[in-house]
């Protein structure tokens, strides 16, 4: 008995050893969306930028904990005598085709990425001028002091000037494809071996990469799998090593099986409800047709008190969400520790507030939600609608796919709406700029502030926050904005969404809070 057990264990060991020795080369992974293009300036979306970060690099990059670290620039310092930053570039870096990296490539990439044809040009709105100082020094002059500029260009990826110009790809493809849509030449740790859009994309390590490889992947094969049940089956059958994301309801199934693990983390995306602050009347109400009760901060506060986040967490999210007090989660720079309380679940208080506001019997209104954008978004809205109803706020819920959701919000077709926001720069300034500043198309501010929440002091504070160099003084300004918007219940922040990925047990990888997956941190054991 003992002997046979030992020998079978030995057999198992050898089988395991030989199989790992074989599979240490190829890493297969899947995600729901195929990167639309291989051009890092053409589309400013997470699937593209996340994928392209394996191939191209920026002047700076984000580490495993999201902190900014040197990449193609080794150091950066504020300019003397004017606003802006001087970047000192890394020497001896080569592109995947062997050509050398210099400041000319940075200059070219800046021109390309800030062109009208590029979707990432908003990153360069603060830039007044870019000057090449020498082969490995370049200055970015900004219109005002901009302490966060280096952080804001972590996804600004550098292309080779000669390669792009030589292949007629000096500008990103706008309506037709060009060479850079399907081909790459970056400085990053991986390069493109083959690509069949929507089917299969193969990456192999870039031998001449300047960095020290922390991964042991020799070939990485990416397959988009849109259907989540198919993706899970592909993982459980062993055909892929890793998938991002998996639905919440499949977590138990993966955990139960030997040889697989669920990777859980917190995304930086905060889910919230917004209001039509500017609307004069409710659009979807049966009973209040001559006023918009949500213009009264107390009514908004009543709505906040009506929501029981702990129950939502327990029932809908299996305890995997973090309640949110403001538009960024704790840990993001600018997070206001001084304002970390959220309105408690207090239906009695909600009813009182409504009565004080002149709506003792409540009122009905329309609630707009997506059904395919955020985790469990439709279920969340159903739960919220019934919680609202319990205090007399009768939400008429309408849900739809995200592809026609934003146009509806832009046309002010809502009384209350659902929104998720991930701060692109990983700083509180980002949601202030997009969600809290008044709508101002000219200055490109408040572009996602659908209800046009407007507070003169917040508008005044935003440029001060953007320009303040001293961290303590800056935090005080941010705290003031958070305090104002909490007091006025500009939004009801609900929770931060979880990140749920699944992999085979022998895979080690890093789950970054921005939902980016980078091959350079993958180890196949």
């Amino acid at each position: 008995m003992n002997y046979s057990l030992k020998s079978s264990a030995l057999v198992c060991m050898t089988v395991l050893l030989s199989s790992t020795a074989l599979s240490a080369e190829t890493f297969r992974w899947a995600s729901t969306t195929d990167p639309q293009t291989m051009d890092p300036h053409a589309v400013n979306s997470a699937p593209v930028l996340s994928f392209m970060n394996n191939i191209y690099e920026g002047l700076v990059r984000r580490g495993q904990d999201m902190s900014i670290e040197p990449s193609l620039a080794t150091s950066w310092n504020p300019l003397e005598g004017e606003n802006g930053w001087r970047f000192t570039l890394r020497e001896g870096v080569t592109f995947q085709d062997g050509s050398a990296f210099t400041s000319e490539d940075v200059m070219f990439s800046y021109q390309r990425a800030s062109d009208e044809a590029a979707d990432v040009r908003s990153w360069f709105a603060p830039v007044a001028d870019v000057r090449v100082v020498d082969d490995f020094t370049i200055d970015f002059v900004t219109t005002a002091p901009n302490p966060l500029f280096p952080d804001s260009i972590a996804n600004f990826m550098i292309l080779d000037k000669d390669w792009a110009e030589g292949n007629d790809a000096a500008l990103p493809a706008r309506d037709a494809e060009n060479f850079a849509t399907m081909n790459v030449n970056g400085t990053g740790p991986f390069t493109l071996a083959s690509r069949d859009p929507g089917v299969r994309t193969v990456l192999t390590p870039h031998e001449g990469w300047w960095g020290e490889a922390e991964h042991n992947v020799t070939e990485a094969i990416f397959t988009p799998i849109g259907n989540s049940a198919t993706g899970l089956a592909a993982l459980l059958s062993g055909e892929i090593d890793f998938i991002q994301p998996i639905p919440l309801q499949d977590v138990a199934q993966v955990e139960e099986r030997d040889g697989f693990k669920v990777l859980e983390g917190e995304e930086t995306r905060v889910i919230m409800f917004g209001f039509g602050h500017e609307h004069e009347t409710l659009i979807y109400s049966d009973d209040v047709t001559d006023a918009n009760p949500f213009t009264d901060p107390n009514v908004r506060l009543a709505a906040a008190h009506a929501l029981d986040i702990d129950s939502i967490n327990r029932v809908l999210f299996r305890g995997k969400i973090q309640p949110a007090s403001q538009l960024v989660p704790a840990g993001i720079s600018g997070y206001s520790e001084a304002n970390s309380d959220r309105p408690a679940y207090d239906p009695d208080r909600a009813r009182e507030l409504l009565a004080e506001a002149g709506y003792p019997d409540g009122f009905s209104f329309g609630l707009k939600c997506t059904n395919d954008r955020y985790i469990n978004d439709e279920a969340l809205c159903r739960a919220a609608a019934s919680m609202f109803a319990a205090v007399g706020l009768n939400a008429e819920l309408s849900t739809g796919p995200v592809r026609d959701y934003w146009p509806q919000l832009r046309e002010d077709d809502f009384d209350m709406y659902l929104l998720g926001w991930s701060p692109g720069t990983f700083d509180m300034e980002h949601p202030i700029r997009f969600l809290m500043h008044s709508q101002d198309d000219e200055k490109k501010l408040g572009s996602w502030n659908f209800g046009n929440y407007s507070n003169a002091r917040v508008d005044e504070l935003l440029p001060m926050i953007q320009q303040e160099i001293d961290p303590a003084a800056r935090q005080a300004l941010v705290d003031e904005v958070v305090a104002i918007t909490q007091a006025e219940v500009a939004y009801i922040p609900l929770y931060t969404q979880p990140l749920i990925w699944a992999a085979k047990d022998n895979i080690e990888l890093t789950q970054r809070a921005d939902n980016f997956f980078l091959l350079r941190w993958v180890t196949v054991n």
Partner: protein
Amino acid sequence: MAYFILKRLIQSLFVMLAVAFLAFSLFRFVGDPITQMTGVETSVADQERLREELGLNDPFVTQFARFTGDMLQGDFGFSYRTRQPVAEMIADRIPATLELGIVALIISLIVGIPAGVYTALRPRGVVSQTILMTTLIGVSVPTFVIGIMLIYLFGVQLGWLPTFGRGGTVQIGGWESSFFTVDGWRALILPAITLGVYQLTLTMRLVRAEMMEVMRSDYIRFATARGVPMRRLYFKHALANTMVPVITIIGLQFGGVIAFSIVTESVFQWPGMGLLFLESIRFVDIPVMGVYLVVIAFFFVVVNLIVDMLYVAIDPRLRVKDAA
């Protein structure tokens, strides 16, 4: 005959034009392509500029005229999502869908026809009853459930067959085929069964009903009385006469198989036209959706034409009429 085909092809142009018109008038309800093409940080002004560049602000009639005009000149436009030429994208995906559809059709015929004949000849047998019951499940369970069940059984639990994709393919003059590798065939089995189940049930029930009807007719009775061997009677005299309606239905269904392979392709991540169409809906990729629908319409027309021509081959009476 040539005149007949030509007439049909000209008719098909009108069918496609009608489909394009209907599709185009529905696209505005699918969503806004611009918000799908641009990132969160893109300014409203930049979005507007792109909308103008793509001609999305033009009146419906202008957009439709431009689309059909370009199509007639052979210009299928570029995808909003990937910026690739649409003609190339669809052409790349046609082999996957056609091969899947053809294998599904073959499975449904080689199982469905014999099963139909058998259940017609022994209507009360235990085997017949079992077959009928089983196939009833086949039509009542939705395709995606059948697909997922097959994946979990043969892919995850038993590990015999791949759960997604096409496996190994071989390029033959621009046609990417699964037919020439073992991996390709292994990947084909589950999706083809999933796609073929409904068709199989339909074929079987149709053959059974027709066969039972024919078996009751006078000429079969006379033939039986005359002592024609049973085998010859069933398969030559009876079965041949059931084939005309069967071919009509199967032929028309085949168009449906190609068009509705969307569900099967999605469940198996099968890189065919249906999957491309689904991705395009998600991104409101109007050029791809438009061309896909027109291609599918064309396909239906061609299948109908082939069915009409098969009648002539199968039914000698039609040939005589034609000659006269």
